[in-house]
């Protein structure tokens, strides 16, 4: 008898011809998050992924619960396909389950599945046989087939498998199955959540951050690196591009109308992100904007940022309230880092009275006051890359 982990996956069932590709990607992603462990065996068979030769401990289960594409994780036991071995295994499982269950007289149920039709006993008979065995050995347990405290799953496949715990997975699709996008990552609460949501749909991320030293400190940059690292637990490896942005801000500040500064800045950010995206093989841009949250997120302002680029711009938070965004940020553990007080220290480049409904022609015209191409080229030369 040995312990192992069973992983169930969901939506990728639907993908017909692509299914083997999706499954392979998921297996690879699981291997990656278990990289700290010495050669666990990860393989798939009959719609399940099996992880063997690994300590079944909290850290492993937590890491797995962040892998997109997984819908459920079961710490399980496996043994030979004979009734005596199965009985011994169930005894261990019930003891484990009782250790994790409170209450005087817990109830239980055995649910068998016989995938191996050569096994001599049917699943109904197995349920009865093993239920009776458990009742004999654990007199304080009672049977409840509708709403049991302990649900023991027994599966007869190449071996006999059993488990009683089901840990929900992150859902979504395996990262790497749906292309790549470039995430504009500011260091605030929203953009990491936006990245997480896109990655959940199987999309890989590359990240772009704008650094305005000395107006923002190197601690702000460190914080963005930390945020990226937190995202990698879900989204896989991320290449972070830190773009020096001070010169662009200063030029815009000196030469363009004050009220348009934010919109102009956003346009430059989008343009630079688009160039980086294309170089890095990303097919769309992702931002953490939601309608009306700040002056630069009115429909007019969003339209005039989109106008600067030709790649599609995804804004997964567009219809969400701050509270909902914060809830996700807390769930994915980026919130605490996001609220560290290092971002945009200096309000110099934030106009006192931003134009909330910028007219596109005015914006385009204002932009001609600076040598955009040269500025972008210099910024790109100074890009610092962190592979996380």
């Amino acid at each position, binding site marked *: 008898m040995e312990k192992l982990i069973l992983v169930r996956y969901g939506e990728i069932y639907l993908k017909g011809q692509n299914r083997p590709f999706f499954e392979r990607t998921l297996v690879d992603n699981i291997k990656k998050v278990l990289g700290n462990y010495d050669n666990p065996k990860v393989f798939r068979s009959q719609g399940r992924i099996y992880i063997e030769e690994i300590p079944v401990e909290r850290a492993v289960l937590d890491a797995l619960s962040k892998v997109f594409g997984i819908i459920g994780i079961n710490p399980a036991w496996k043994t030979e396909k004979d009734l005596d071995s199965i009985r011994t295994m169930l005894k261990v499982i019930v003891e484990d389950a009782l250790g994790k269950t409170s209450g005087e007289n817990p109830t239980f149920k055995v649910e068998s599945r016989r995938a191996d039709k050569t096994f001599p006993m049917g699943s109904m008979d197995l349920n009865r046989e093993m239920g009776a065995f458990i009742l004999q050995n654990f007199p304080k347990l009672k049977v409840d087939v509708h709403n049991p405290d302990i649900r023991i799953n027994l599966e007869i496949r190449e071996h006999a498998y059993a488990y009683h715990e089901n840990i929900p997975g992150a859902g979504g699709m395996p990262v790497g199955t749906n292309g790549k996008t470039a995430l504009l990552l500011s260091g605030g609460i929203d953009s990491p959540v936006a990245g997480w949501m896109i990655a959940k749909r199987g999309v890989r991320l590359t990240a772009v951050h704008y650094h305005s030293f*000395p107006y923002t400190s*190197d601690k702000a940059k460190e914080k963005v690196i930390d945020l990226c690292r937190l995202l990698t637990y879900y989204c896989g490896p991320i290449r972070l591009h830190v773009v020096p942005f001070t010169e662009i801000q200063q030029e815009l500040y000196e030469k363009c109308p004050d009220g348009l500064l934010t919109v102009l800045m956003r346009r430059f950010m989008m343009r630079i992100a688009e160039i980086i995206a294309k170089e890095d093989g990303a097919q769309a841009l992702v931002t953490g904007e939601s309608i009306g949250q700040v002056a630069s997120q009115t429909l007019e302002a969003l339209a005039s940022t989109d106008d600067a680029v030709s790649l599609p711009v995804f804004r997964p938070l567009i219809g969400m309230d701050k509270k909902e965004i914060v809830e996700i940020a807390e769930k994915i553990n980026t919130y605490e880092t996001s609220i560290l*007080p290092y971002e*945009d220290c*200096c309000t110099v*480049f934030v106009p*006192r009275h931003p134009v909330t409904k910028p007219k596109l022609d005015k914006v385009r015209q204002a932009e001609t006051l600076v040598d955009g191409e040269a500025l972008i080229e210099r910024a790109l030369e100074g890009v610092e890359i962190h592979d996380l």
Partner: protein
Amino acid sequence: MRQIYLDNAATTPLLPEVRDEVIRSLTEDFGNPSSLHRLGLQSERRIKESRNSIAQLMNVPADSVIFTSGGTEANNLAILGTTRARKRYGNHCITTQIEHSSVLNTFAYLESEGWDVSYLPVDNQGLLDLKDLEKAIRKDTVLVSIGHVNSEIGSVQPISRIGQFLKANYPDIIFHSDAVQSFGKIRLRPVDWGIDLLSASGHKVHAPKGIGILYIKKGTPLTTLQWGGGQEMGIRSGTENLTGIVGFGKAAQLIYEFMDREDDTIRKMKMTLAKGISEAVPEAVINGPRPDEGAPHILNISIPGIRGETLLHVLESHGVYVSTGSACSSRRTKISHVLEAIGAPIQIAEGAIRLSLSYMSDPEELLLVPDILRKSVDQVKRFTRR
């Protein structure tokens, strides 16, 4: 680029002799000072030597110095230890509004436990008025805790007068002073000054981080906060941080020589620096005491209309390292509680930067600072809010 480190009130680099001694000790003195064999004895002896060097610097008996993990622990131990021991005699403590957070937050915790704490105001130089202290004293006052040198603006409280006054009139009140910023810079005489408890930290005087001391006058009531093997006279159990202790001892020895040779090395550098700045950047305002008063190593200035943090980063890009009194964010600027207490207007407080020196500062390098500051200020001013 030349690196000019002017953040010595935050921490100091190790003196080379201290570094050598620490490395030696790390390899050789691995015995547990409590062990009975030769190696244990050797470690115990090292601790004794360090304790002596540190005690000598303040002219106190060696057995009145106990080692802690640093200034914060020393302050916690002093405040919590005495109030625990004196609980039956009263319910009131006195401190000032400009203490270090390890003092203020410890008192805030005591308040949550039901203690009364008076926070004395200071004037625009950061100085306490003795009359205010006298007025604040009550029948149930058990502890007065007043920091010696303020870490942000360098104001120096008259702790010898305070201590002598308390001893003459209120001998039962315990007097603690946080001397983290003055230890090794100003000659301390706790015995003569009527001080019962005094905190100091190693890394502010070129020793490693993670080591500090609390001077405890013999007979001062103090409850331990940490139980175990009874090390440090039963007050602070736990296997001693031998490397830290050895490093602190060595630093204390060297500083004793520095202070003996010439008292005023650091102040002279500060005066030159202040003069240079006032010529190169005449719009700079000094926060707190005049350079010839105040602590020898701390100079706090503001350039009106410029944020301290922005200036800090520009200076950093020119190789000069300083501190700010306030952390700023786009939403709200958190003003330093010290600058608030001395009544600095918000524009001044937002702009404050602290330059702090040490025995390792190089007078030649300091001559470059005023011009670098001028250049940095001009750079920031080009982009200040319209």
